[in-house]
């Protein structure tokens, strides 16, 4: 009995070790995975590139970078090989097995973005299918709304897009972002009363403050306008000159000289303890955020453009 118990404990231990080894990918592998993706995506010959990218996607089917590989294959087929039908067929096959909502959203967005330039009617039809369908990725819908809101003849569809976007359950910050963009859309169509209702639901989201500030200023509600402008400039430091906040503030509160203090107070928030995360850097060194506890961190999200 005791030998059996020992065997069970030993085999359980081995299972735990094996399972943890399988599910936990060392984070510094990210660097090598993205380098492999870059190498595949930079093959000059499109046929070789597609072969390499397909091999990459097959080898890293559980890594987020697979989406970049799928997108690169679709773009290569559609643009360089002039095979739109083949690209769309490949896209449909990928979507049959892709279950991650964010990955599905990213792929659908890439398809829409491509069609927007290549075949506008198909892009609009695809947007309609997405808006009426079951996909629920926030970014996908946000980006669709951005495209649709810029075209007068698509205003009705843009509005349906915003309705769905606002119905997607997300955190307050991104909900406020969606409200801010929707408010901008309504304001641009001269529907300021509706815009105000939407923008006032955007809380302190800085970009909502720009439009709210401008509207309130024009309507003589200058103290409230300053509140909105302060929220805007506090979150977007470069915007102070754009809205001439120094001059406006001195008109509303002559001689006070406390604008900088108000902006500084407004900038400091407390959104709670962030979940921990481990990253690889460009040299393969790993960085766990919690290892810096006791020290302040400044993290800047950046894009290589």
């Amino acid at each position, binding site marked *: 009995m005791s030998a059996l118990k020992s065997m069970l404990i030993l085999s359980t231990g081995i299972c735990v070790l094996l399972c943890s080894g399988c599910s936990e990918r060392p*984070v510094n592998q*990210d*660097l090598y*995975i*993205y*380098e492999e*993706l*870059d190498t595949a995506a*930079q093959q000059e010959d499109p046929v070789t590139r597609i072969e390499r990218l397909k091999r990459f996607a097959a080898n890293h089917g559980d*890594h*987020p*970078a697979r989406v*970049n590989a799928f997108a690169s294959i679709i773009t290569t087929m559609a643009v360089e090989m002039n095979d739109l039908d083949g690209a769309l067929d490949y896209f449909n096959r990928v979507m049959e097995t892709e279950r991650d909502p*964010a990955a599905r959203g990213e792929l659908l967005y890439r398809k829409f973005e491509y069609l927007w330039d290549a075949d506008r009617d198909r892009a609009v039809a695809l947007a309609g299918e997405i808006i009426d369908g079951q996909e629920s990725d926030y*970014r996908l819908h946000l980006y669709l709304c951005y495209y649709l809101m810029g075209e007068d003849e698509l205003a009705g569809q843009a509005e349906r897009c915003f309705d769905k976007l606002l119905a997607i359950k997300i*955190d307050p*910050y*991104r909900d406020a*972002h969606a409200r801010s963009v929707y408010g901008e859309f309504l304001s641009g169509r001269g529907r300021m009363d509706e815009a105000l209702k939407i923008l006032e639901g955007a809380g302190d989201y*800085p970009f909502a403050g720009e439009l709210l500030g401008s509207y309130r200023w024009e309507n003589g509600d200058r103290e409230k306008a300053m509140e909105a402008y302060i929220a805007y400039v506090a*979150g*977007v*430091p*470069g*915007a*102070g*000159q754009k809205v001439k906040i120094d001059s406006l503030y001195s008109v509303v509160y002559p001689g006070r000289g406390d604008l900088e203090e108000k902006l*500084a107070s407004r*900038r*400091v*928030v*407390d*959104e*709670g*303890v*962030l*979940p*921990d*995360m481990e*990253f*690889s*850097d*460009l040299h393969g*060194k790993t*960085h766990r*955020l*919690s290892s*810096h*506890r*006791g*020290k*302040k*961190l*400044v*993290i*800047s*999200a*950046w*894009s*290589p453009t």
Partner: protein
Amino acid sequence: MEELKKLETELGFKLFLVDAKGMVKKTREIMEEKKSTVPLLIDSQSYSRNTLKAMYTPTTFIIDGDGRLRARLVGGSEDFNEVVSGILRKI
């Protein structure tokens, strides 16, 4: 960012860049061209997008010593380092 990095010791913080695009070769070229010494984190799990909620790039996040998110700044400006320094002194 290099100018901000020079303030790390004086203001007691650590500066990172985070890139969610996953274009490591291009990113490395740009970093080398700019002679940047700021560590660049590869964000394969979309942490900046989903947890920090970066809606635009650049967006800068300031986290205090307890790991709490204390500020989010969109874009850059001439007085950016001054703004960041003010927040770091305040938290």
